[in-house]
């Protein structure tokens, strides 16, 4: 029998140290550990190193709040609800953040390698692009690839020749093993079994690759329930270190079968945080203006939450207004 180490939201955020290398669950605007990220901002974390297969609302918040020193990933934005990540864009253009770009395939290769404990992963995706241009290796330019940081590979990638089947040249992408994984999942069992209710994204890889795993969830349920259909589960309890129970922890990103993405909230964030002053104002209202998830939900209000509530048949809301009609 396994057991879980349940802690409070503030305590969980307190486990993250300034300078830590962090990776997240989710995909752009779905299943992000937002409540934890808000709390990292409240606690004033600094110099974080984010490894992201792709970013989204949660990392836009951390970057806007000045918590992040280094960002590496393949993409930043909120898709149809705010295409470009305006906070990363602003910080990168002003030279206030160290940035290194990959393709999705490259980033997936890196976290996959980390997850299975091999130092690199081969791929022929996205060759011939400026992603591989040594002049644009942001981490090297900032002197981060000198071997002193265990979370930064000494080289961004390597070109090798297939030694087995004469397929020619391809890439080796270095593994990434983040110090902490911040994972949102709707369901965690009483022994720590983790279940998500839709696409698995890179969630299982992030959990396996990281040294410490914090899962923030909607509900803690009897493990017996999750074990009735083990094919549906994402991770086993011994891969998990801490569990935080925190309803609506992914808002304004969505959680399938619990609540939809909050389109209005995301569009507004994208439009209202273009400058640093605007971001600070937004953060004063939505992060510093509340001191707990309970206060945050009170501020959101029952009406809004009811509109976002997902249909139990479809997994998303059929009543929330997403477009202009």
């Amino acid at each position, binding site marked *: 029998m396994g057991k879980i180490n349940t802690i409070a939201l503030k305590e969980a955020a307190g486990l993250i140290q300034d300078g830590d290398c962090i990776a997240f669950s989710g995909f752009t605007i779905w299943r992000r550990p937002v409540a934890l990220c808000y709390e990292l901002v409240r606690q004033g974390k600094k110099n974080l190193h984010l490894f992201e297969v792709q970013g989204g609302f949660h990392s836009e918040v951390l970057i806007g709040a000045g918590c992040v020193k280094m960002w590496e990933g393949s993409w930043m934005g909120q898709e149809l609800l705010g295409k470009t990540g305006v906070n990363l864009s602003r910080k990168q253009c002003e030279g206030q953040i160290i940035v290194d770009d990959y393709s999705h395939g490259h980033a997936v290769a890196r976290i*996959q390698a980390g997850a299975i404990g091999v130092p690199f992963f081969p791929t022929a995706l996205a060759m011939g692009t400026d992603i591989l241009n040594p002049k644009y290796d942001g981490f090297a330019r900032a002197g981060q690839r000198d071997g002193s940081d265990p979370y930064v590979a000494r080289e961004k990638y390597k070109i090798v020749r297939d030694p087995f089947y004469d397929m020619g040249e391809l890439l080796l992408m270095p593994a990434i093993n983040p110090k902490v994984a911040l994972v949102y999942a709707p369901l965690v069992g009483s022994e720590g079994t983790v279940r998500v209710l839709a696409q698995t994204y890179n969630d299982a890889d992030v959990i396996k690759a990281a040294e410490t795993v914090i899962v923030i969830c909607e509900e803690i349920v009897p493990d017996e329930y999750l074990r009735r259909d083990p094919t549906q589960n994402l991770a086993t309890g011994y891969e998990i270190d801490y569990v935080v129970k925190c309803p609506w922890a992914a808002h304004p990103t969505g959680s399938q079968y619990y609540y939809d993405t909050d389109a209005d909230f995301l569009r507004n964030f994208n439009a209202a945080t273009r400058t640093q002053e605007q971001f600070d104002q937004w953060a004063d209202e939505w992060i510093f203006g509340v001191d707990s998830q309970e206060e945050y939900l009170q501020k959101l209000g029952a009406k809004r939450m009811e509109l976002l509530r997902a249909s139990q048949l479809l997994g998303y809301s059929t009543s929330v207004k997403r477009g202009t009609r």
Partner: protein
Amino acid sequence: MDASNEYAKVGEFKPIDLLAAAAAREVNDGDVVFAGTGLPMLAITLAQYTHAPNSRCIYEAGSIDGRPIDLPTSVGDARCCYQCAKAGGLYEAFYGQLHSGYVDLGFLGGAEIDKYGNLNTTVIGDYNSPKVRFTGSGGNADINSYAARTVFIMNQEKRRFRENVDYVTSPGWRIKKWPSGDWAPRREVYGKFFRGGPTAVITDMAVFRFDQTGLMYLDTVHPGFSVEDVKNNVDFDLNISLVSGETKAPTYHQLDLLYNKVDPEGIFLP
């Protein structure tokens, strides 16, 4: 011919409608299509409702052959999973499907493109001190490097059709061979991993294709625009010697589907 299958007249449709319809025509029935966020989603869905009911769609967050009944706002949306054959993750999408060689058609957008089909979705200006940052690659570079055919959907503007893009996010027909960075034909860089490349660019003004040397040429011009209009909105010397005529307008049936079935909520369409 059923009246609904007649072509709409200029003034009866918006530029974006024609863009979606023209893009949809690039899908062959039976294609496995890997589509990005936005207009590519509209185009593949429209194609599935019309001439390509047996085309299958992969979205990069891991939904394989979904049959959404509501337009997703994210490729990771719950809606992508409706009736999908398999809900995996990004490893499944990028390695289990794409790198394995299942993908016939990539459907992507971009900010800047050059005459070889090199696409930029990363920065304007020098990457090391950019004027503007966009989203970055996401799956663009991967899908474009491994789909047998890739179709780009873009806005027609001079500043977007450039002799050289500021950053090659996604590989065209002549690309940089590292570590030297010398330009080389795509086949040479990809070698035995070569599967294809960009085949068309569709904008709100025209449809472009690529010749055997990998150079972009003008194929058709949309109703209401001239070859001159297109030339004036391309920064490089555009080959107009192969123009085949006018792009077909959307049919009334396609317009009805677009507004009443594909995007009735007005998420992407006005």
